[in-house]
């Protein structure tokens, strides 16, 4: 075998082995992702329902740590017919809608004056946005955290 043939063989081997190494790495990453999801799953099957925890109450009488148990459709605002009433001047009468859909929680700004933020990013009014367990939701001066034990992440 001449040196050139040896070099060519080496190049060919590198190309093929490299391609399979790439796929192998991708497969390993996929396996790790699945394992993480499986580990998190059994612990998460709690009996507790989803809830909103107050982080900052603003000028309302809601103290930090207050919890709201929530159903599949949650109207949030200052008016007393909301499911979660927040009596703060920065909160609009009908501020936001949090709803369960397609296996996730979606929050929608109902055209509030001071807007809705998820993890400090402002949403466009009328465009639902996914909220995951552990996310903070900002409404005016009030900040809430969504906790749903039946969800990983």
């Amino acid at each position: 075998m001449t040196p050139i043939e040896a070099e060519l063989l080496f190049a060919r081997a590198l190309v093929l082995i490299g391609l399979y190494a790439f796929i192998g790495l991708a497969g390993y990453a996929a396996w790790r992702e699945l394992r993480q999801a499986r580990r998190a799953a059994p612990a998460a099957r709690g009996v507790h329902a989803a809830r909103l925890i107050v982080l900052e109450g603003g000028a309302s009488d809601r103290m930090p740590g207050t919890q709201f148990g929530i159903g599949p459709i949650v109207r949030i605002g200052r008016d007393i017919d909301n499911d979660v009433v927040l009596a703060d001047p920065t909160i609009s009468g009908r501020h936001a809608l949090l709803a369960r859909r397609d296996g996730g929680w979606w929050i929608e700004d109902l055209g509030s004056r001071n807007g809705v933020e998820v993890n400090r990013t402002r949403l466009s009014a009328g465009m639902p946005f996914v909220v995951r367990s552990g996310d903070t939701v900002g409404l005016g001066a009030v900040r809430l955290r969504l906790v749903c034990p039946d969800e990983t992440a």
Partner: protein
Amino acid sequence: MPRVRGWRPLEGALLAVAAIVALAAAAAPGLVRDGRVVPSDLGAAAAVLTAYAVLHVAMCWRAPDADPFIVPLLALFGGLSLTLVRRLAPDFATAELRWQLLAVGAVAVVALGPVETRVLQRYRYSLASAGIALVGVTLLFGRSAEGAVAGAPRLWLGIGSLGFQPSEVMKLVLIVFLAGYIDDRRELLSEGGPRIGRWRLPPVPYLAPLAVMLGLSLLMLVVQRDLGAALLLFAITLGMLYLATLRADVVAVALAAFAGGAIYLHGHAEIVATRAAIWLDPWSASQDAGYQLVQGLVAIASGGVVGTGIGRGQPGIVPAVHTDYIFAAVAEELGVAGAAAVLAVYGVLAWRGFRIALVARRSFDALLAAGLTIGLAFQEAIIVGGNLRLMPLTGITLPFLSYGGSSLLICAVCAGLLLRISRPSSVPDGGLA
């Protein structure tokens, strides 16, 4: 001064593997031809890889949480494409390098630039009108690819020597439009449509775009004879509508219409009848209509299990090997082992694309990511299936691997959009919205 917010070790490792593959592949043709490694071959590959490495660093800085697979995957395909095209179509060697570098720029601008996907959503109807206008202009003023035989499909628009294929742009416009259109009509999802006897048809809003797209595809097919683009646009429409509705009857209606159209065209459009005939029996026309197909099959077969090695095969015999038939070149020089690996890498792309769609925070983003993935996956399946004679051959490019300026750029924009959607905070403050 912003700091680097996160290392992306998986992306770095994958990028290193991609670099090894690309550089080893780039060295091989020179060894075969001149008995030494040609510096310009390695240099071209190194330039593209460096551009992707810069993009990797930029991602660490600006988008530490974005998907780690897309950039290495682009680098891998970009490097392979560069080596194959430079050897098989030396006339396009310089242009290929320029397009590859432009593609990296396009990914960077789309993924990290200031324009949010919300902007696409807002201008969905403007984009769709522009896309339809573009197809109309091509119907009137389109021209054939340079050097093509007289009577070849007139799919190109251009000024002077600059040309592009509007059907590529149309693909992206269609995905953006459908994502916006479906997102506007989510509430109708559970409703039924008009009744015919005991049959309840899918809701009209879902049938309307299908009918329009079917009509537009047929028009493109009959007037422009662009079989591949027509099939791809129809497949994207069907795929996205199925994802949005999860209704089998939508698929059934669409496939019935498709079958009807195919049978009708088989009798009335010469190009469809020819393609079907050479698909069923390429050997009896092996010197004329079936020449490309037969040469492609011979190339694939001569690769064997591990291939001839890059630079040692003769895939250059196959007509259009650098565009429609690049997969035959891969199969001949890397063998079944390499071709299967390349298909598996497309599988990784599809997996990541649908995963990005699943975890997207806004329904428009989810639909857009799914649509982009469907588009890339279908395009890959249609042309590889055609090359392997699993289905009739239609002339479209293999995403990321074929030479083709507009095709490569549009695929890069698709990849850039997937990267942007994969950033968890896809609504950063200060973005253009």
